[in-house]
């Protein structure tokens, strides 16, 4: 499968804890598994903020792809388009 580039935006607690607002990642393959691999490599020693193990995000990480919140995001075969925008958010705590 061909790779792609994605844009990743971080919000609230994750933005502060990772010290990142916006990054671009180049993926080997255009799917969610490849995105997680690239993200984990990019954030390095801070990966425990988002990841519960080598391949899975923590349950308190909410993801939107191209501004659509995806419920069970963690499916590795979800396809990503070139230029996809991926938002990484904490669970809502408004009100």
């Amino acid at each position: 499968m061909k790779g792609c580039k994605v844009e990743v935006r971080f919000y609230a607690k994750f933005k502060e804890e990772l010290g990142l607002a916006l990054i671009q990642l180049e993926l080997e393959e255009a799917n969610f598994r490849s995105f997680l691999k690239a993200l984990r490599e990019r954030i390095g020693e801070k990966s425990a903020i988002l990841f519960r193990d080598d391949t899975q995000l923590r349950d308190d990480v909410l993801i939107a792809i191209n501004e659509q919140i995806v419920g069970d995001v963690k499916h590795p075969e979800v396809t990503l388009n070139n230029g996809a925008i991926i938002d990484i958010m904490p669970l809502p705590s408004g009100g």
Partner: protein
Amino acid sequence: MLAKVDESLDSLDDLISRIKESSSDIGAILIFIGVVRGQAKTGERVLHLEYTAHETLAPRVLEKVLRRVISKYGIIDAIAEHKIGRVPVGGDIMYVLVASRHREEGFAALKDLVDSIKHEVPIWKKEVTEQRSYWVEGEKVDP
């Protein structure tokens, strides 16, 4: 219907007038006002809260929640506004208004709306107390 996430809230009088205009069948208007409490769950004294939101997703999800609840309970109309930015102790955070024919479905819809807004709309709260500041953790809720 009105869904708004903004640095300022409209006046309650204006919102009540607006929702009243939606139908002559309205028999009850129920209102929830979220207010900043002066004491955190930890017992610390709160100075203020800071709200931030996903600028495009938050109003869109809020509108989706309103549509779902209006349809589920068969109420006439609903309005929800949530403030972002700094809110002092005693300040208003959120207004939720429900207009229904009878109070029963209105109360049920109002509770569902407030709970859904807290758990689904991408808005986040930082509590600033006399000692520290910290992000309040959201709760995972099964759909």
